[in-house]
């Protein structure tokens, strides 16, 4: 997000007074979360825009309501990417989202590459999803049948064509949407086997997470935040 220096109006001291949050805390948020980054004057002084002050006010409110600072920043990032219309659409679909009764959204991640799994697991967890990683296609099929997750992410190149078989298994079960991923272009095969979405590896973190979110119907964090209201 580009901020023109001319947009920066308020010094960090002014923002601290307006919001009742210490300058030290504001600097720590900026360093740690990189969400609200003020412009700098030619002399290097921070200059916050009106929008940024509003955003910081939102963060402060969320924290006061019990959210961790990291979660509050993620929530803000979410909201900055979704306009009001999208939000209300999500709310109207509230009843049909694929969360389990306790509100947790579970992603079953069937991968062949442990590094790919590590990163995918991390990005999903930072968005609030519960993740179960398996490298054995048979185990994945078993979990699909016995404890169906909210969504299945499967690498189509798992050994012996097991990835496509998992897509078909999920289709047969009926209730589990599938995001198929692969290092090569297998879009047609994936969709023919019942996958609802396909992404080519390497996965772009934002695109990956938003695709999962689209499949389950809502964002895990947003749901929790809404639940707390």
């Amino acid at each position, binding site marked *: 997000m580009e901020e023109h220096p001319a947009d920066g109006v308020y010094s960090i001291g002014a923002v601290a007074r307006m919001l009742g949050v210490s300058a030290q805390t504001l600097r720590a948020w900026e360093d740690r979360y990189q969400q609200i980054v003020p412009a700098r004057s030619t002399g290097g002084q921070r200059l916050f825009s009106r929008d940024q002050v509003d955003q910081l006010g939102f963060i402060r409110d969320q924290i006061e309501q019990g959210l961790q600072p990291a979660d509050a920043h993620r929530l803000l990032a979410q909201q900055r990417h979704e306009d009001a219309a999208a939000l209300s659409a999500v709310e109207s679909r509230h009843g049909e989202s694929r969360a389990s009764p306790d509100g947790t959204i579970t992603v079953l991640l069937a991968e062949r590459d442990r*590094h790919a799994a590590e990163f995918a697991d991390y990005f999903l967890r930072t968005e609030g999803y519960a993740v179960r990683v398996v490298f054995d296609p048979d185990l994945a099929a078993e979990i699909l049948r016995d404890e169906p997750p909210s969504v299945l992410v499967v690498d189509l190149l798992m050994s012996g064509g097991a990835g496509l078989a998992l897509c078909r298994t999920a289709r047969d079960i009926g209730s589990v949407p599938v995001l198929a991923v692969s290092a090569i272009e297998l879009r047609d095969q994936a969709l023919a086997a019942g996958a609802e979405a396909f992404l080519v590896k*390497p996965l*772009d973190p934002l695109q990956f997470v938003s695709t999962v979110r689209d499949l389950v119907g809502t964002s895990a964090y947003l749901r929790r935040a809404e639940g707390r209201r």
Partner: protein
Amino acid sequence: MTDRLLSGSDRLDAVFGGGLPRNSIVLICGRPGSGKTILAQQYVFHNASADRPAIYLSTVSEPLDKILRFGQSLDFFDPAALGTKVIYEDLGQTLNEDGLTGALALITELLKRHRPGLVVIDSFRALQTYAPHPEGFRGFLHELAARLSVLPMTSFWIGEYNGADTSDEPEFAVADAIVSLGTDREADRDRRVLSVGKLRGSGSMSGKHAYRLSSAGLDVFPRMADPVEFDRSGGSHERMSTGVPALDAMVSDGFYRGASTLLAGPPGIGKTLLALHFIFTGAQHGETGIIATFQENPAQLERIINGFSWSLDDPGIELMYRSPVDLYLDEWVYDLLDTVHRTGATRIAIDSMGDLRAVAGDEIRFREYIYSLLQRCARADISVAMTEEVSELFGVTRLSEYGISHLSDNVILLQFLRGDSQLKRALTVLKSRGSAHDPSTRQYEITTDGIVLGDPFDPTQDMT
């Protein structure tokens, strides 16, 4: 988003066949001072965005503060991008305390936190010293490569590798692209050259490409070796005046537009003058002409020109004077092409080829460049006149020592002849590609109107 990582310089991207392959591992090798860090930072600042930042990791050979301090002097270095779009981190302390395992964990952490589009490790070679044994380093290398390939990002590994290392070091096997920055010894000076050692999934320009380092970054001059021969018959059939009416008549009403013409002769015979005729005639007809000279500086040239009622202030004239001292052929050719592009020139006079040959280093390279330059001009319908000095004052027996006469469409020989106790000037059209020409040798004089062609010599004239 394309599958190419661009540098911000079209010429550099062209060397890599349209940009470096995105999501690959690029090894940048070269000796200290060859510009590895500058090249990497050029890519960093051109590609970094808030959504896809670039991470620059220093190791132990180059302290982070030093990289930053020198980085500041570069035009593209943007302090406002630091911490948001461009993130500098020091791996040195982690390496000293926790070795390669610690470095791997820290890199993984940074990848998760920042989700970068570009990661630079400078110097990568320094990491080797932290491996307990060669197998340990290989293991680290594969672990790192595996992590880097999971996310959509390109990584640059920078190292002071020599050419001799290339086959043995495991980095070279893992890398998808290898870029070498080196020097070529040429006469008494070094020429900086960039070469592409390996480029997976893409073609690249072969050979060594000269480059220059400045505060604007690395400016490369791709080696010119245009492969396709331009078919003259497919070119323009429009005739254009040489500037000397009687000469036009000798070559069937002027040269073809887009043709190249070599004007050869001994010193003082009037080669430069004939080239100026060619340029100023164009200017009188509204065509822009470039006088690319090494011989006369602007003041000297002005004096010559004013003797013939021409002026350098003519808006159709673009003077490109470059001192032959410390001139590089590659830079000069690109300089000329840029000037053509900027001015829309359709005529070029190069005075002289000998000066260019002297700065070219080796003859093959000289021929490749001139050949490519003439091809490009022919394709763009730009006509070129080149002067070439021959060493014999009388009785010219050899023309061009570097084969330029073969590359030229037209060759005109100017020479001195003796007889009747008088020194005479003589002009002969030796070659006129694709058209009939008058094969006679004609006397000419230099007057205030320039070159004035006379009659053919009679049979008694001594032609040796």
